């Protein structure tokens, strides 16, 4: 699997110990450009730890994460983002006190102006290009009506759409999604899946962590199954679904 040409994200031999606990061991992962790769596994399998290692929130004990030739390990979150990596959190991380429109305009400035620039000569309302881009993005995710509201007043599902819009407006090359439908009603889950399917055609690479099988099998091109901090199976969805080790991890374990 490692030998393929257009691998864009490479997790190489990552180990993570918390004290004596082996949270992750021997993790090797290669995600091809433009594909959606899902990481699944029972609770406590190390999924979130793995995602946090990829995004640079947690340093691995050993091993490295390479994105498009750049070593992400040891870089700060804003540096990783500036390389074209965006992240959707399990609990939507938005700017509750800002308007919905400003929530989406802010990341557009990070994309245009970089990690730090004091931009105070031209007022916000003179930034027509970024404003229009943000409005189009909100139209895309179905929040056009809520543009002037405080983001903190949105429902859980709408906050998730907003967070997605904030990531997508940066046109990331890699989008990481941490349980994008966690804590959502069936209805919100379905609309979120629809939205994720819609953006699939945009060609960005996605890594998605999910325990909801319905979500995984409707979105993923390839799947890795994590159990006890190790990858126990990986491949195409149908192959993974039929793998007896996966069945055992899900059914024979704590359940």
């Amino acid at each position: 699997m490692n030998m393929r040409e257009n691998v864009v994200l490479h997790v190489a031999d990552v180990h993570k110990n918390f004290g004596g606990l082996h949270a992750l061991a021997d993790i090797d992962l290669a995600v091809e450009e433009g594909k959606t790769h899902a990481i699944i596994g029972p609770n406590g399998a190390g999924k979130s730890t793995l995602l946090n290692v990829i995004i640079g929130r947690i340093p691995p004990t050993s091993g490295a994460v390479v994105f498009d030739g750049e070593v992400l390990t040891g870089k700060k979150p804003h540096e990783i983002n500036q390389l074209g990596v965006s992240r959707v959190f399990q609990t939507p991380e938005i700017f509750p006190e800002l308007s919905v429109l400003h929530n989406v305009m802010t990341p557009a400035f990070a994309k245009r102006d970089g990690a730090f620039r004091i931009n105070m000569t031209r007022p916000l309302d003179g930034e027509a290009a970024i404003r229009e881009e943000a409005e189009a993005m909100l139209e895309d995710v179905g929040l056009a009506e809520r543009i002037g509201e405080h983001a903190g007043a949105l429902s859980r599902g709408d906050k998730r759409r907003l967070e997605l819009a904030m990531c997508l407006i940066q046109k990331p090359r890699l989008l990481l999604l941490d349980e994008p439908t966690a804590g959502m009603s069936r209805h919100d889950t379905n609309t979120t899946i629809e939205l994720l399917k819609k953006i699939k055609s945009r060609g960005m690479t996605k890594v998605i962590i999910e325990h909801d099988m319905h979500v995984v099998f409707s979105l993923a091109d390839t799947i890795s199954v994590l159990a006890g901090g190790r990858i126990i199976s990986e491949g195409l969805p149908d192959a993974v679904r039929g793998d007896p080790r996966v069945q055992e991890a899900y059914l024979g374990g704590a359940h």
Partner: protein
Amino acid sequence: MDFLRLPKKDLITFAVFSVVVLTMPIWLQPFGAAYPGLMQKFVIFAILAVGFNILFGLTGYLSFGHAAFLGVGSYTAVWSFKLLTMDAIPALIFAVVMGGVFALAIGYVSLRRSGIYFSILTLAFAQMSYNLAYSVLTPITNGETALQLARTDPRIIDGLFGEAGAGLPSPSLLGANLNGFEAFYLCAVVLLVSFFIAQKIFVSPFGMMLRAIKSNQTRMSYTGFNTRPYALAAFVISGMYAGLAGGLLAITDPLAGAERMQWTASGEIVLMTILGGVGTMIGPVIGAWLIKYLENIFSAFNEGTLHRVFSFLPDGVEEWVVLIASKFVGEGWHLTLGLVFMLVVIFLPGGIMEGVRRLRAAFPSGSSARRNRRNELNPSAAE
């Protein structure tokens, strides 16, 4: 000219604010406050509060050490008077620069922490500056006696243009003397410029970044922003405002003492901003004016005045009332300030500006009611 552009609403605010500030000598008369010394204070502390609000109002970082930058500004300005010239312009430039340099140093260290730890760090630095000014740095600050002008000061630039006259020189602006009203108008113009710059920050992308830092710093860094330099920039800008205010204080009275840097002075800046309304443009200005006005009134009261005020009461009662009330005036006026502050924070956490908003909501004015009706008829105009 992007540099001078503001949204229409803010331009109106600026125009109204300019009129209010420049006509102070007229409308303050009924309040008995239209004398230069007090009006200078109104304007100078408004600059201080507006600058503090750029940090506290936008980023949410609560500095308890801004008086240090005020003091640095004053010392710098007086040194500029002593060494170079009595002209106000170099004094102000140096005061702003030094305020910024100190803010850069203190901010760089303090911003490694946030929340209460940041506040404590700034407080500690300010107290250190205060103690240094009293002890080790006496050659620069003249310690307890405060830094003052002397006839023997070099004043190199002034010396090139002519002999020093008899007696102490006083601050000037391009050759014109700065007494009373002239000094007030200089400060007023500086306030208007400062206010305009603050407005520019509030409506700019930079201002939105600062608000976003306050709102969610995690999202900010995962969005690709390096948050520390943004917060530091806000800290330095507000430190420069404080340095400017300190410089102006030295222009209106060329004397700089360490008590200007004490923590009570830092606390007063915080009170002004919260009392008026954190994060609003006008609120901190109103807070500054209210506190300086009340200070002026209450600290001038003594028992004699109280006896006159309460003379309508029966004798026995009057004694008691005066005894109690006297604790709240004169030296004890901070007790009044504390009470006012408590009432505002408990009942109007958004400060006076929130009170104004609530009143507006309770009694919609004619124009806004009309606007609402129009919007019902024509929803597309509702934006």
